[in-house]
């Protein structure tokens, strides 16, 4: 039997990439459509149930249109059950209020509930302050079934509203602990007979969610559950470091950025972090580089994190305004990055060149 473990879709959540309104809207639509694709995938691959381990929505931001699209996808795949536990971001209780919920959409309450598919039993509970401590004592123990448990929280050794106390779940006959909360895939052993896994989010939203995103495909057979991560995001986010030490011109830096991003699909989103040391002669314009690289990917962002390779002693005897300015900046207690920006800006102004902020 096949099951899908997904979580942290955060539908309608804000984009953390500083996209413009049009791009953010498009990206949000893509995230919703990823769930629709997932439903289609489940139907086509004879998946019996999709386990949604929390944070389907994103707090108060959930809109009616999104809820309708999700429920519509569930209705269209009646052969697949959708087992859903609300997470800490599913605060908008009204999202599913007054909805004719399809029979294949099963929402787990704040008490344990178990759904059985042959010899597979899936138990879940919506974690809250009231049951945060007690839920471990009331964990169901389905006889003779391969037990899968769904929870939403950060694993640890303590109990809490969004804390999953792993020791209390060990040796409780859990074959697979399907978790949600962390946005990157990871799988670890729970005890001698079971594992726990975070499936990660379905689509990345900010550059702190780089890398492949998707869901975990579970194959349960003979009392054993085999998890396999399936990358499923329509776009990936990449953070690319570009060392521009020794490069003098924007064209050279642009070339270095292109080299560093080689192999990344045009459909992905890339953040370039310019690293290394630059000199006063380095012609570097973040805006210009942003414009140059902008149309190479779905979304790009350029950050200048370089520092100035400048020795204050070189300007000790320079009685020019430039020398005096450099001495003043270098002797100030500003950060290296800020000093670099001040120096670059002041010298550009004195040289009568276009100011790059």
């Amino acid at each position, binding site marked *: 039997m096949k099951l899908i473990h997904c979580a942290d879709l955060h539908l*309608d959540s*804000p*984009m953390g990439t*500083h996209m*413009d*309104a049009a791009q*953010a809207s498009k990206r949000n639509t893509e995230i919703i459509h990823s769930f629709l694709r997932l439903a289609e995938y489940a139907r086509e691959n004879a998946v019996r149930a999709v386990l949604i381990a929390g944070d389907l929505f994103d707090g*108060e*931001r959930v*809109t*009616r*249109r999104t809820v309708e699209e999700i429920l519509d996808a569930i209705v269209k795949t009646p052969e697949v059950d959708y087992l859903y536990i609300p997470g800490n971001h599913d605060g908008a*209780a*009204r999202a599913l*209020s*007054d909805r004719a919920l399809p029979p294949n959409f099963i929402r787990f309450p704040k008490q344990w509930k178990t759904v059985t598919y042959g010899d597979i039993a899936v138990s879940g509970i919506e974690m809250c302050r009231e049951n945060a401590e007690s839920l471990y004592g009331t964990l169901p123990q389905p006889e003779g079934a391969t037990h899968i448990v769904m929870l939403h929280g950060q694993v640890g050794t303590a109990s809490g509203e969004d804390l999953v106390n792993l020791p209390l779940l060990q040796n409780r006959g859990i074959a697979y602990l399907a978790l949600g909360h962390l946005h990157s895939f990871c799988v670890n052993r729970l005890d001698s007979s079971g594992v726990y896994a975070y499936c990660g989010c379905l689509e990345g939203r900010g550059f702190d969610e780089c890398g492949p995103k998707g869901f975990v495909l579970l194959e349960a057979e003979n009392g054993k559950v085999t998890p396999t991560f399936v990358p499923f995001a329509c776009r990936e986010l990449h953070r690319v470091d570009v060392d521009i030490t020794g490069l003098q011109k924007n064209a050279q830096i642009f070339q270095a950025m292109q080299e560093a991003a080689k192999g990344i699909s045009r459909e992905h989103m890339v953040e370039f972090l310019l690293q290394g040391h630059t000199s006063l002669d380095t012609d570097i314009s973040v805006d210009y580089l942003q414009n140059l690289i902008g149309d190479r990917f779905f979304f790009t962002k350029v950050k200048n994190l370089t520092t100035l390779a400048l020795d204050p002693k070189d300007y000790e005897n320079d*009685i*020019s*305004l*430039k020398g*005096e*300015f450099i*001495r*003043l*900046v270098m002797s*100030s207690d*500003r950060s290296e990055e*800020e000093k670099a*920006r*001040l120096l670059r*800006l*002041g010298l550009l*102004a*004195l*040289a*009568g060149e276009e*100011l790059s*902020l």
Partner: protein
Amino acid sequence: MILKRCHIENFGTLSGFDCEFTPGLTVLLRENGFGKSTLAAFIKAMFYGLQKDGNSLEKNERKRFEPWQGGKFGGFLEFSANGTDYRVTRFFGKTAAKDSFSLWNLTKGSPSTDFSEQLGESLFHLDAKSFARSTYLSQFSDSGPAATTSIQAKLTDLVEDTSDLLNFDTAMKALKDARKKLGVSQKAGSLVPNTREELLALEMELADTQSRIPELDEICRRIDEENAAAARESQALSQIRDQIHQAAQFEKQALAYQQEQVRRQKVSDTKSDISALDARHPQGYPPLKEIELQKQHTLLLDRAAAHLHSLSRPENAEIAETGRQRFPNPEQTSRELEEAQRKCTLLETLTAQQGAQWLPQEADQLEALNRRFPNGAPGKEERAQLARNLRQLQDLQIQMDAAVLSADDRLELDTLETRFSRGLPTEADLTACEQNREALRALRQKAESCRLPQEEEASYEALRRTFASGVPSEEDIQAQRQSCRRIAQLEGRKSTKTTQVEKPPLKKAPILIGILLALAGAALFLFRLPVPGAVLLAAASISLILGLLPGTQSPRTVTTSAITQEENQELYDRKSALEDFLLRFYQDAQEPDTKLDWLLRDRDQYLRLREQQARYSGQQEALQKEILEKGQRLRAFYAAYFPGRPYDPGFVSALRQQAQALTQLRLRQGNLLARRKELEAQAAALRHQAKEFLSRYGQTGTDLAEAAAALDRDSARWEQLKEKQAAVRSAAAEIQAQAQPLEEALQALLEAYNCFTPGVPYAEQLSSLRRQLDSFRQADTALRQYEDAVAKDRQTVEAAQKNLQRFASAWGPGTLSQLEADTRARLQLEQALVEHTQDLETFLNQNPHTECPASDLPDQDTLNRQEAQLRAQSDETGKTLSSLREKRNRLQHQVDRIPALQDQMAALEESGKDALEKYSLLTGTMDLLETARENLATGYVGTVKTKFLTYADTLLQGQLDGILLDKELTLHVDAQGEPREVAAFSAGTADSLMLCMRLALVDALFPGEKPCLILDDPFVNLDDDHTKKALEILKEISKGRQVIYLVCNSSRTV
């Protein structure tokens, strides 16, 4: 760098000016207004071109130094730099784009490219403003900040390596511009991005939207509750509907049972009805066809009886019975009548022919004519002669009518007779008029030529206005000329100024009081009264200080004019008198010399023209008198013949023509009267002859033509009637022979039918007989038809009665309709019995086990009421839900905006944060650059200060306590314990200070190279002592660099 020579083509007041410069000190002693400042500006313009800092004359050099004389704007300057001689030539156009620049290497004698148009910057490393401030010292003190950025750059000696300090202003401007574009402003002491307002608005909108969430949640909760209630109601409704269904089943069974009973009853009832009917008809029922046939018989019987009853004997039966004896064979009678009619028509035709040939009125007419013409009518020849006489008479009348003047001629004759009622003018009178007219024309031409030519007349008019207030004498004008020369002399003296130094006088009164108080104080001390003594001594000290203080102040330089007070008054009086004199004749009094020349010339011309004009005026007067006299004579003659009409100068020829026309018209009128009398005599003879002829035949009318025509007509008619009377008399006998047999045949026929009446026309008698025959025929036909109808109806009645009697004997008594009704009822009952039996069988087949049911459910009405209550409750819940959902949707619609609002806010916050960061970066950069510049400035202030003190020591000889010099090179001098601005000192001291400052500045600016120094009479405010010292300094400086000293007073020359 040494200036060698310059040539000014045109530049401000200077035109065609050349000047040689010596390597050391060049002194140019020129009077006031010569253009010393212009020369200095020209030198600057040769190096830098013309500057423009604004549109005013002061700030726009192109306007300010535009040549007064016009011509080519510019010139050249020769100078030596780096061991090479150059000539720079610049000419200036209306705009900078039209300026020209050329540089020649005079050493090589070829064009040079050693320097560009930015010659000044390349040579001195100073911009134009800095050059002016440092190397050009004007007459007027300028104690303001002297350090432009360019001077600062030069002072810090950085120009050779970098241009960054020169770019300081540009850099700061670029940074400020960039900061301005960021959209960040200072509000309430803190920086806020301009998007803050928008962000606040969004925050408020978001807060407002978020405040709806609790309400939305509450509504959602209520919706859930209502949904639960709706589910419960739905379940109850479902139960009650099940009960209603069961009750409906019970009712259905009961209904079936009732229906079966009803059907059975119907079969039974039908059978009973059939039995009862059969009992009334033991002989059975006749076929319906037989009944129908008997009904038709009854109908025929009724109709025939009614018809027979309605028949009546015709009214004209008598006529028919009588006619059958008179007209035994009507057809033959008819044929005989037709034949008789034909004969009657023929007889009428013959009678008509006889009557038509001679009408009675013709006979009356002939009788009347015979009475008029007892001897017969006049013959044709006599009547023709009468007609010829009448035509001749008519011709004579036409000729008489034509023998008169035409209407136009008659009108003209009347007009002319009126005009010349006093007699026709003689030829001598007319000739005299023509001579008068010619003389008048000659006089007018002569008067026209007696006036000034047009140009002279215009000049005379203009001069008359000029001298409207009187013509000045030549002596007056000469006197004003002398006055004008005196004024020029006095003004020259007035513009020459003398300078003298005055020491302030001591104030004697306070000194005297001070001495007295001191003596009194000393006396009090002697008398051992120290306190009052000390007070008096203190007062004495103050009084002495007040008296002696003016003596300690610097001597005052007084500038006075070379003209005396009396001369000044004379100058004023003379200028006023001259201006008054000139303004009597001209609109302004500018350029009096020229105006006086004009006045002399205009006076002579005016006097000449005035004399000429007077001469012409006398001649004109005599001529006009003669013209008037002759004109009046002509007008009087004209008025005699043309009273009340406007005068026409060419009237003489018209008058002559009209007199001739009158004579001719009178002659023509006499001839026509004679001819008319002759024609009248002929006409009277002819008329008498015609009247006599006509009266002979009874025509006595006055109209001869009409009487002749009547006579002609009557004569022709008399002849016609005479001829016709003869012809009719011969034809009457023949017609009478043909009519006789016809009359006899007609009379025989009428007598055969006993209807002949003598005297009555045959046609009328035949018509009566035909009418009698036709009446007989109609009456005979009607009588025959009546008899046939009566016989037929009687036969029909008899046959019907027989049939009815036979039917009644076969089916028993009773009416035919009753029998038919029973027969039909029997058939219908049979049919109904079959149908009821079949319906019962069908029902029993469909409902095999009908029985009366029994149920404990409430009746259906009760259940329906319960269901209605539940449905109403459910509807109410539905309405509540609908209302809640509507509210929910509305709120949800608003809440759905939260993501968009949050995203917008995040974007605005991000952009605002970014703008603030950039603003901070730009501000930090600007602050640091400003600090760097200030740090550098402190480096050159010391040098300038040292040099300044060196010069000040020489010029002011230790009068200065101390000085303060800031980075802007603004000078403050300590005086009486406080730093004071240069402007606070006397003009002489201020000029001395600024001279020292400029010299120090030049020394600091150019420690190595030696650019020229241009001084535009800077010592004008210095006293003799200081002027002497300044000139000594100048001589000393000129040993090391070229100095061009422009001065207007020989007392200040070196």
